[in-house]
């Protein structure tokens, strides 16, 4: 059975029992790991950082699956854990005063272009540079809408925010990014 065809209820059912817990967790990973990875990667940018954050996040999911009460969709719960882990990581990195991508004060765009796991063009690098300047919440909204192509309805469930507020946030983010490009003559 393809992993995406497995329902969340089946996965949770398997994870409730000690004997089938690992099997259930592997199915959960198969279904959601890529989506969560990209969500984290767009927040932290660097692959190694994204891998660390994703692994921490999934260990927490495995350990605390009993606390999932089913009040929201499983992906919503996973998304929130991943978002919290990403923000915690970014805050710790800010406190340390350096990042693996912008240490020595180099612009993110330059560092990205030198990154072995980034092969986007100058405009894509500039887009990530512009995104990095957005507030965390606004960046999340932009990522979900622009890269994951999520509907506002689904975003409202995941981010626990009204659709109107999300639309406004996305529009603001787009305008800021446009401004960033215009200022640098990248149109």
């Amino acid at each position, binding site marked *: 059975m393809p992993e995406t065809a497995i329902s969340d209820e089946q996965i949770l059912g398997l994870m409730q029992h000690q004997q089938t817990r*690992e099997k259930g*967790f*592997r199915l959960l*990973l*198969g279904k959601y*790991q*890529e989506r969560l*990875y*990209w969500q984290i*990667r*767009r927040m932290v940018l660097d*692959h190694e950082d994204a*891998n660390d954050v*994703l*692994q921490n996040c*999934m*260990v927490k999911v*495995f*350990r605390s699956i009993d606390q999932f009460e089913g009040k929201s969709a499983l992906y919503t719960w996973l998304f929130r854990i991943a978002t919290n882990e990403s923000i915690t990581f970014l805050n710790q990195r800010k406190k340390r005063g350096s990042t693996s991508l912008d240490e020595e004060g180099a612009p993110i765009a330059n560092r*990205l272009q030198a990154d072995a*796991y*980034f*092969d*986007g*063009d100058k*405009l*894509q*690098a500039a*887009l*990530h540079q512009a995104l990095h300047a957005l507030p965390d919440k606004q960046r999340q909204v932009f990522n979900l*809408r*622009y*890269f994951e*192509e*999520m*509907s506002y309805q*689904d975003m409202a469930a995941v981010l626990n925010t009204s659709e109107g507020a999300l639309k406004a946030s996305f*529009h603001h983010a*787009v*305008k800021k*990014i*446009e401004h960033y*490009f215009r200022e640098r003559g990248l*149109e």
Partner: protein
Amino acid sequence: MNEKSKDMNPKEELRDELRALSPLLEQLKESKEGFQVPETYFQNLEDDLMQRIQWTPRQPVRTPWWQPLAAQWQILLQPRYAMALASILVLMAVGGYLIVRTAPGAEPCQDIACLTVEEVRSYIETNIHDFDTRTILDAGGKEASFEDVGLPSSVFEGETLSEDELLDALEGLDPDDLETLF
């Protein structure tokens, strides 16, 4: 949401939104994002994670002893419970004060009105020499006179009585008569 957007999938909806908002971002969306992952990263991720989970000791969840109490206090600190609790405490304080005030063994009353007759009598008998006779007569509450007990009234009317005269007069007194002075 209008009928047209209801029929569109999120991808089409986003494209239309971007076309209206920012043609540049719409154009950028067509090119690849640029992020890559090492080959077989996702294939190995499952095993890497399972290995990590097995080797990472599970952190025991320790609940500090005070946490349940703190949770209870949180409930009591809600305004309606806090008001009720405060009222109970005030009532208890007032009630406690009243009980202690009237309880046996409580601190004696400092007011002279609280003294019993026995206490007054005992005090006077002990300190009889501290009172002058006129005060004793006045406090007696009856119209006793020195003549009643065989003493000349001139004693307390400006004429002084020598010590010998006083002793003689006292010796002539009947003890029962002397008691009537009090």
